């Protein structure tokens, strides 16, 4: 493998959460009865004309700015022509040679390494309708008994983000897309719901001799909406291409389908069937002219994004990258964490508790971070109880669970369930002495050099105190006696 390196470029399609569609006033909805949200424009009735959704433009600009793109003062909509029942006008209004924004970059992390991927372009278009094929075996239009079209989705604003081929591995591709998705969510322009296909990806992949700067012939994986399958598909495609090249063959430029069951890629359609989309400027729309002052207003009201927040958390709170990454990824979680710190919890323990007990709790309960009984103040007080030694770490976890269960203040829980840590030296010394007296064999083993037996003694002390003994003190007392 080391003789070859993969080169990966990605395209991401995001449906925007605007109230209305890209070119008409119909509501953007999910899971409603088919064909409820349609009008002459999105059904392409004779004479109907598109009108650009200004909010969609703002959202697209937010994405472009988050990706450090140059937002073009002037961009142009084109018609992309092809016949299909899910495309009522038989052309998609998209952007072509004058897109909304170009030449950006996006920084993302793979492990502890920060990588930069250049962004080729960001453009606006409209989504197609949804087809449902009845009968037949393939689930495709050919061979079906009949097909039905649901135009509710037709005309939903869609953003296409295209990268340069800068991504060095399947794992990096997955990380890139996950972190890009988190960024789009943080912008508040799309929930990027994957089950509903609100976000879809295409990947281009080629291989070349390691260290070469030439690009090999690429293949394309289209319309994926699972991070795992995308990574698996790319991982399967690399050895396939390498095997072809090492056998002296050449890779054919084609679109591939990934079968998650077999873990293999197979050709979907060959380039002979490639469409000629006959792009030309959409005469029903005037070019989109963006006032630079307005773009600056949008820039000034951008929220903090996960990438910047991650680095701030590392610098400001001294968090390890992994902790910072988890907390920074989601805006509500990040806000909760910072509120915990603001309520007086030391940053690093606060981070551990937030990404540990708290995150598990909200995930299990299906809560958005910040909602529910566990307020930042309550968690901060619990963190302080642990940090001040009032309860042990394991005791703290118990307090957390009981606090949720009984909807009670952490101090109350400690009190009611007697979970306060025993830090009284005389009380603990008595327990330690008893444990040593009851286990003479293990004492001998320890003194003979078997240090691991220490853990056994600590366990015995904990058992005898119901887990409430201050572990630091127990260790001190044990060593004072055994090492003497």
């Amino acid at each position, binding site marked *: 493998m080391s003789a070859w390196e993969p080169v990966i470029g990605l395209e991401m399609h995001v449906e925007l959460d605007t109230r209305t569609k890209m070119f008409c006033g119909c509501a953007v909805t999910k899971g409603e009865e088919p064909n409820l949200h349609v009008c*002459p424009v999105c059904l392409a*009735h*004779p004479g109907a004309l598109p009108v650009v959704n200004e909010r969609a433009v703002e959202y697209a600009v937010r994405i472009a700015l988050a990706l450090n793109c140059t937002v073009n003062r002037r961009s142009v909509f084109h018609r992309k022509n092809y016949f299909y*029942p899910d495309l009522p006008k*038989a052309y998609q209004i998209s952007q072509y040679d004058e897109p909304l924004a170009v030449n950006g970059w996006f920084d993302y992390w793979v492990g502890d390494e920060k990588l930069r991927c250049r962004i080729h372009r960001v453009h606006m278009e409209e989504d197609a309708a949804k087809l449902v094929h009845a009968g037949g075996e393939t689930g495709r239009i050919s061979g079906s008994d009949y097909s039905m*079209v649901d135009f509710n989705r037709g005309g939903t604003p869609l953003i296409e983000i295209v990268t340069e081929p800068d991504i060095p591995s399947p794992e990096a591709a997955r990380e890139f897309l996950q972190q890009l998705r988190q960024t789009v969510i943080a912008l508040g322009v799309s929930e990027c719901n994957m089950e509903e296909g609100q976000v879809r990806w295409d990947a281009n992949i080629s291989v070349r001799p390691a260290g070469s700067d030439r690009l090999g012939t690429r293949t394309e994986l289209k319309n994926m909406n699972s991070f795992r399958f995308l990574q698996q598909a790319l991982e399967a495609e690399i050895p396939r291409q390498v095997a072809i090249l090492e056998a002296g063959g050449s890779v054919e430029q084609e679109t591939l389908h990934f079968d998650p069951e077999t873990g293999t890629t197979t050709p979907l359609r060959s380039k002979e069937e490639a469409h*000629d989309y*006959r*792009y030309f400027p959409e005469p*029903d729309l005037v070019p989109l002219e963006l006032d630079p002052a307005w773009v600056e207003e949008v820039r000034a009201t951008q929220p903090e994004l996960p990438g910047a927040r991650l680095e701030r958390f590392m610098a400001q709170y001294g968090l390890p990258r992994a902790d910072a990454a988890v907390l920074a990824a989601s805006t509500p979680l990040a806000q909760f964490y910072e509120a915990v710190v603001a309520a007086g919890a030391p940053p690093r323990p606060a981070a551990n508790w937030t990404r540990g007990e708290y995150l598990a709790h909200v995930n299990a309960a299906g809560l958005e971070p910040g909602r529910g009984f566990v307020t930042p103040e309550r968690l901060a007080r619990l963190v302080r109880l642990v940090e001040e030694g009032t309860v042990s770490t394991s005791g703290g976890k118990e307090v957390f669970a009981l606090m949720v269960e009984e909807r009670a203040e952490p101090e109350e829980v400690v009190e009611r369930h007697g979970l306060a840590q025993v830090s009284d030296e005389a009380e603990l010394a008595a327990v330690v002495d008893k444990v040593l007296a009851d286990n003479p064999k293990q004492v001998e083993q320890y003194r003979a050099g078997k240090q691991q037996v220490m853990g056994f003694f600590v366990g015995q002390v904990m058992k005898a105190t119901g887990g409430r003994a201050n572990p630091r003190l127990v260790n001190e007392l044990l060593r004072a006696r055994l090492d003497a």
Partner: protein
Amino acid sequence: MASLDTLRLTAHEAKRLLIDGEISAAELTRAYLDQIAAVEDRVRAYILVTADNAARYSTKVDREMQAVRGPLAGLPIAVKDNMVTEGVTTTCASRILADYQPVYTATAVRQLWDDHVVMLGKTNLDEFAMGSSTENSAFHATRNPWDLGTVPGGSSGGSAAAVAAGEALWALGSDTGGSIRQPAALCGVVGMKPTYGAVSRYGLVAFASSLDQIGPITRSVADCALLLQHIVGRDPRDSTSVELPEPIVVPRDERLDGLRVGVPREYLAAGIEPGVRARFDETLALVEELGGRCVEISLPHTEYALPAYYIIAPAEASANLARYDGVRYGYRCQDPVDLLDMYERTRGEGFGPEVKRRIMIGTYALSAGYYEAYYGRAQKVRTLVRRDFARAFAEVDLIASPTSPTVAFPLGSRTADPLAMYMSDICTIPVNLAGLPAISIPCGLSDGLPVGFQLIGPAFSENRILAVAHALEQAIGFDAVPAFRGPHAQAGDAGSREGGAS
């Protein structure tokens, strides 16, 4: 009730009769329905006459007139059948939309409905407005009321013939390459194509989006101004529509002192019939008599305008007409075996030959590898044509030309001479490419058939054009009316397959 001569009555006169209470809206509408009953079997201007609706609605207007009396209330109108009308079948003269029931109404028509105009019906056209003779209708050809053996021009031939034949007080047409002005000229009525964007295209079934424009076809220039007043304006549903810099005013001018009129030598280069040329020259003489001055000018890229038009219009049409696929509305072929079969047969059976020809030309022109050579170059020519006009308007106030090089030609006669056919659009097509306003007014007869005089102005100079056209109209004093001259033999039914602009 006053006796009404629908062949001569103008909207201004009709409006005065209504205001003075000399006639009711119902009587006015009845007069047009009677004339339709009398001559429509010979003229065939309409695809659909909505007689019952018109009678009912005019009565309602009479009843409610005292309360809400709009400036156009009760005036009957004919609408070209490529503007969608909710509840009234809209066919575009195509088999593919033969039974199409629109679910909304075109903005221009809606504005008139809101003004309580009475719609008489939907008029014939070349299928999807592609043609210059109204012979390309899937249903029937329309005849010119001046001579029933000749065409009314096209594609708004139904609207122009209806107004000329007294079957409508006035009408709406649409103009992509001359489709209002040329039939107005051939039928001896007034027709105006406004500046691109002045009238909303929302609900106008698209032929070539960057060229299409709705406009009035009327009996007088003052009527033209009155109707235009009520259809212009920015429409939030049409991104290419604009607010006019000044309101349209009904002209009263009689003098043309200081006016400079340019006459492009390229428009007079070839193919102008002597009778047309004579009426045109006489009208130029009138311009000078009224205090204006005529100078020869040059629009050097004129010869390239035509080929550019025949790339751009079909290219846009190829995409605009792709939506007629049998999936959601309109004609669908019987028992398709699969998707491709449905597409091919629906469109193969639904479109006529001229429409298919243009779809194929347009598709070809946009294809990979040909785009730059055809569409790209055509757009560059378009820019040059615009510059020609801009340069000319630095020297002159308006440009004048014959509207059409010939008078109305016999049904079915043009297929043999494509050059004459192409040349017939030479004076109107460049105006659409440049997005400019232009009017055609009758300036006399040649061999008993009307001749049209075209005035072209800079963008948004509608008021200037209307003022000059009105002064000339008064000086010309054109008062002939059509005689419905034979032959009564059926001629040029849907079989004629002529091209021509639109």
